[in-house]
């Protein structure tokens, strides 16, 4: 159950998207997110769905795997939609009871927000599913480099990100292990009301926190033991280079944005 979270998980297959320069993919993801917020017609979303479907096909990651990532945000999604339905004024009143009124505008905004969130998560999971964490942070570091002059610690940010990405599967595995160990002692995480379930989390959270701190300390020690002192003067084994296919990808991305603006 806990392994279902796909955000931040790399899916290793060979595809044109996997071979793209990470910087290209990061920039395209930005373009995609910005474009999403310009659209406010349903036809526009239709277009995005088609484009997204095509992109997913090119990545060769099974679509089922992408959709799994949505499970983690079901709660936020429902929350957003419900909130928008009830609290957005405007348009014809469809339904009214005591202080609750549902308007046409509210339903429209709610659906739009829901669609936006879903597309946002699926779209950005393409980036993390097709880019290994190392490539991803290399890309971020390289993109942030120009901002170093104004005091942005590019290398440190990239290093922090790569460590946190690396820790996601480790902590998930750890959680799984601790859960099993407590279940072996008869712990029950699935029944009871919300207070009981929250209480049942304590036997997981305490050991998890302790182990997270322990691991962080061990990692810091291991890095220091190998003379890590930050980014100054570090060279890398594989330096990033834009290729022709990155050029094509940018052209497709720009076209996508223009179409989104027009729609």
């Amino acid at each position, binding site marked *: 159950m806990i392994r279902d979270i796909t955000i931040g998980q790399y899916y290793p297959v060979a595809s044109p998207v996997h071979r793209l320069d990470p910087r290209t993919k990061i920039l395209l993801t930005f373009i995609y997110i910005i474009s999403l917020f310009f659209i406010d017609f349903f036809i526009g979303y239709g277009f995005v769905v088609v484009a997204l479907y095509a992109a997913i096909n090119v990545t060769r990651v099974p679509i089922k795997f992408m959709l799994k990532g949505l499970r983690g945000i079901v709660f936020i999604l429902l929350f957003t939609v419900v909130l928008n339905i009830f609290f957005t004024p405007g348009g014809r009143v469809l339904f009214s009871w005591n202080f609750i009124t549902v308007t046409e505008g509210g339903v429209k905004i709610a659906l739009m927000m829901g669609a936006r969130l879903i597309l946002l998560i699926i779209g950005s999971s393409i980036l993390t599913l097709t880019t290994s964490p190392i490539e991803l942070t290399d890309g971020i570091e390289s993109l942030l480099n120009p901002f170093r002059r104004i005091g942005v610690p590019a290398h440190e940010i990239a290093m922090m990100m790569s460590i946190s990405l690396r820790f996601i599967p480790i902590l998930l595995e750890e959680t799984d292990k601790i859960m*099993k*160990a*407590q*279940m072996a*002692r008869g712990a029950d995480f699935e029944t009871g009301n919300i207070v009981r379930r929250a209480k049942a989390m304590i*036997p997981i959270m*305490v*050991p998890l926190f*302790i182990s997270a701190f322990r691991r962080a300390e061990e990692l810091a020690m291991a890095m220091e033991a190998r003379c890590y002192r930050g980014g100054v003067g570090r060279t890398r084994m594989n330096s990033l280079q834009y290729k022709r296919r990155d050029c094509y990808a940018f052209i497709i991305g720009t076209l996508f944005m223009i179409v989104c603006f027009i729609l």
Partner: protein
Amino acid sequence: MAIKISGLTHIYNPGTPFQKTALEDIHLEVADGEFVGIIGHTGSGKSTLIQMFNGLLRPTSGEVYIKGKNIHEKGINKNEIRQQVGLVFQYPEYQLFEMTVYDDVAFGPKNLGLSKEEIDERVRYALEAVGLDKKYYEKSPFELSGGQKRRVAIAGVLAMKPDILILDEPTAGLDPKGRTSLFNQLKQMHEELKLTIVLISHSMEDMAKYAEKLIVLYKGKIAYQGTTREVFKEGRKLEAIGLAMPQIRYIMEELKARGMNIGTEVLTVEEAADLIKNYLRNAGGVK
């Protein structure tokens, strides 16, 4: 029959590129009151197998019977199974969470819904069984040493009063004194309480000394299975699958190779000492 497994196969992440067959067509039986060892190379499926014993993992195919009951049948209470089969994971001290040692050990019995008196009795029984001094009962488990933490964690499982105790490398990271005393306590519980014990260990010496039966896993399959003596008879074949014989066997083989007419199939140092003594007596002393 304490544990019976038939035709069990387990595949992790089926249908993804991470798909991995951890166990394949496993058949095994553990009789009541037996002390069984599981050995195998890292990644051979040992830890997956023991999670089958108390239903933490559901096999992709095949059946698991505990005391004759198929644990994945409908209407079986999983908590009842987990009370019967106590499972101590690797590095169990990492699962401690309570404010005091006493409360942590009481976690299991509390989950079973026992009365306060019963819980108290079980906590004291379990902590005594692992040999932890009374002065530690009200201390925070995080103040204890590594070996003491390990004892508390094992006590946490013992307090469930399982009929079958399963331990995944319980002595990993313990000092020699801690190892010996833990093993001796296990052996004592095995003999006095007729506790069925299944143990994973990488120490062939410990296995030779304590286990009555051995199950050897290799790449998710059972490579050898039988009494400890039978399995170690395979000798150097074990080396081919990443294992070894007890060290004393190597000494005996070396002695034989150098001209001592002596049996080599020994399990423990004591046995070897007897053989050598006999040999020397019959041969009339050292040349």
